[in-house]
């Protein structure tokens, strides 16, 4: 890691300190770092004050974070043929800035929008036309092959996304996932925000509605670092509890949905009710069932007194046995296990090549958990979670979630045992951000590693705000899990990942 700058999670560094390498050196260094043990946290482009296109990457290797940068030409040799982890990132840069990665194996648009530099479109799309644009799907030839197109409008209340299956009978040979239907221009909205920056947290909470706490934590930590704000220990504990409540409510809801997808109804109903209880606990803390409005740069906005903590503590104690029972009901039904086991397997080496994160990665045997590796808030004082079954199938993903629920319940109980003083902060507040600085923040939201990266210019305004939802890594994992699976198992595999459409689309 010679050419890299070693950084910490949430540490402000001067932009001048980030190594500005030659592209060829940069490429070699990044590939060496990521080919085996390293994983990509951030890999994005921005135009600096002189309108030069720059590239910055943040790589994690073991317990360490590294960063490096370079200037980017309008055409550059793609890194993806050497290392698949860059596949989506390079497509994103091509779309956002019109820089063409040469020899990229599958260069398609990510979200269907014009690049911000007014360059000729890399994909040959005319954006004055609505979707569908000019993007061929991967096809398989042969008389016995049939193509099934699903979406972007689906039955039920899920988000829009297009799934293109190439099937031989019931067997899926290839699945291609095309998203972007919910692109709102989040990064641009964040960059255009003006002082006193009170609009930012609200935008950030809407990146992915089910990860409101995860994203707002990343954002708040970034602003806190750049503005030099201290967060009191009580607020850190409350923010940790909120993130864990978000994790539990989502995992519980998804275990229920998994059960419903295999037509095993009792756990669906029970978990549905229990999910509501956990959302209501967030309501107790934040006044909002999804925890919106609680976390703000500098701490928390609402007072969390003994009364609120008692309500949450009692409720957690009350629900824990019920959750354990319903989990037993679900995981001991042999017809359910027959569906979960050996379905949608993502083997460890595939997961490693793609750089899967979060519970999906852990279910495939990648033990990375940002709560342990890069602890923020009150995570340093909590114990790590262990996963028993990690073979990468639906059962593993379900079981990892079950273990995480139990672990999170224990963590919340432990945290609530402490006597904390969580004084709320006054908002809105005017924050002066450090000029010419760079900060990256990482948190383990319920889906996995959420990361925000901020660059400021010489006036302390936001030059580039990069958001990365774990779904950005994991959608490819879902596509891989369907290889040689029955097409009728797709909904089950999909739910076992339950990735965010809007978190990906930004």
């Amino acid at each position, binding site marked *: 890691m010679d050419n890299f700058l070693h950084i910490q999670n949430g540490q402000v560094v001067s932009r001048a300190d980030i190594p500005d390498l030659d592209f060829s050196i940069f490429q070699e260094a990044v590939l060496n770092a990521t080919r085996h043990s390293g994983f990509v946290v951030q890999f994005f482009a921005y135009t600096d004050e002189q309108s030069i296109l720059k590239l910055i990457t943040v790589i994690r290797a073991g317990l360490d974070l590294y960063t490096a940068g370079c200037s980017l030409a309008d055409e550059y040799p793609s890194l993806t043929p050497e290392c698949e982890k860059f596949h989506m990132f390079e497509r994103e840069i091509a779309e956002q800035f019109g820089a063409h990665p040469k020899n990229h194996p599958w260069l398609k648009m990510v979200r269907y929008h014009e690049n911000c530099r007014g360059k000729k479109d890399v994909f040959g799309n005319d954006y004055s036309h609505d979707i569908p644009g000019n993007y061929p799907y991967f096809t398989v030839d042969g008389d016995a092959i049939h193509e099934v197109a699903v979406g972007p409008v689906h039955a*039920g209340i899920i988000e829009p996304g297009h799934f293109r299956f190439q099937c031989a009978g019931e067997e899926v040979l290839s699945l291609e996932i095309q998203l972007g239907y919910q692109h709102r221009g989040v990064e641009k909205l964040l960059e255009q925000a003006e002082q006193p920056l009170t609009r930012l947290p609200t935008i950030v909470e809407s990146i992915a509605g089910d990860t409101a706490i995860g994203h707002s934590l990343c954002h708040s930590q970034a602003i806190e670092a750049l503005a030099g704000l201290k967060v009191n220990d009580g607020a850190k504990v409350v923010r940790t509890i909120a993130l864990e409540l978000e994790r539990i409510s989502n995992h519980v809801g998804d275990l229920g949905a998994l059960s419903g997808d*295999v*037509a*095993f109804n*009792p756990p*669906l109903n029970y978990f549905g009710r229990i999910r509501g209880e956990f959302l209501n606990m967030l309501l107790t803390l934040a006044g909002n069932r999804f925890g919106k409005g609680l976390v703000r740069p500098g701490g928390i906005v609402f007072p969390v007194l003994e009364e609120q903590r008692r309500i949450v503590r009692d409720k957690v104690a009350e629900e824990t046995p019920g959750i354990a029972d319903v989990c037993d009901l679900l995981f001991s*039904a042999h*017809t359910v296990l027959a*569906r979960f086991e050996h379905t949608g397997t993502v083997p460890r080496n595939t997961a490693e090549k793609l750089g899967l994160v979060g519970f999906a990665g852990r279910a495939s045997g990648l033990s990375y958990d940002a709560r342990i590796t890069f602890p923020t808030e009150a995570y340093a004082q909590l114990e790590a979670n262990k996963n028993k079954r990690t073979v990468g199938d639906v059962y593993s993903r379900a079981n990892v979630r079950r273990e995480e629920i139990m672990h999170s319940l224990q963590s919340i109980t432990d945290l609530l045992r402490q006597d904390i003083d969580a004084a709320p902060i006054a908002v809105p507040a005017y924050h002066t951000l450090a000029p010419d600085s760079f900060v990256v923040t990482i948190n383990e939201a319920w889906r996995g590693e959420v990361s925000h990266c901020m660059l400021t210019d010489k006036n302390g305004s936001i030059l580039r705000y990069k958001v990365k939802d774990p779904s950005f890594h994991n959608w490819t994992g879902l596509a891989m899990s369907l290889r040689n699976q029955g097409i009728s198992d797709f909904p089950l595999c999909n739910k076992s990942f339950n990735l965010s459409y809007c978190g990906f689309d930004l």
Partner: protein
Amino acid sequence: MEFTFSFASLLLLLVVFSLAPLFMGVILKVKAFFGGKQGAPLLIKYYTLIKLLRKGSVYSTSTTFIFKLGPIVSFVTAFMLLLFFPFAGLSPVLSFHGDVIMLFYLLGLGRFFTVLAALDTASPFEGMGAAREVFFSALAEATIFIILVLFFRLSGGSLSFAEYFSGNQVVNLWSQSAALIILVLIALFIILLTENSRVPVDDPATHLELTMIHEVMILDHSGPDLALIEMGSFCKMLFYSAFITCMLYPFHTGIAVFNFIIFITIMTLLYAGIGLVESITARYKMDMVPNFILTSFALVFFATILTMELV
């Protein structure tokens, strides 16, 4: 060929037919109970039918008259089935020697038109569902015809429902061949679940098109067309349940009123049993379903061999 016709039977048929949606409500109630919910009212299926019948139908411009024909044929064929069935031991409205063979092919005809209507929409989902439905019911047909062979032997050469359940040499659990009938009952229950798209073969409640078998074929139907399809499926369910019920209890003797009460009771319990099965099992993986259906075939095939005094 001998035809019979009776007005009492017609009245009974109409009563039983009008109860069909109520029985479906029983399944939903049982499922809701196991799910810890209060569930929809027992009469929900009546409300659904009334709602659908008051709506208009929407037709895709890419479909032809076949698409409109599908629901009608599937309802009519399913209803015709009931005309030939001796509910509660009372002789059926219509009957002739050999009607069973015609009836199962009438079901096949209804299915054929449902499949055609599904293919007519040119949707990849519906084609997939049609392929599954045809495959699984072809397997189920093997079981059904072995059952008919078995019944032919047990009832001394009968080939009509009237003879099976209201004649002299009736087939039921209380006759000499009870052991064989138990095997037939299990097999027939499997066929009932298969043919009526119930868990563990299919999930009638799912919204996931890719996993559906029967439901996906009727996705494009709406309003009165959908109501016809629903009523057709109620009839089919009624037919299979009554088939099982008549094997469970000898309705051909005794007082008609009591027979009717017992019939309705057993039917209700049977529907509750279906609800119970749906509550405690998950769906099978699609490639496991043929094994499940062929299990029924193995059972009745074994039963048939036992009737042949080979030794």
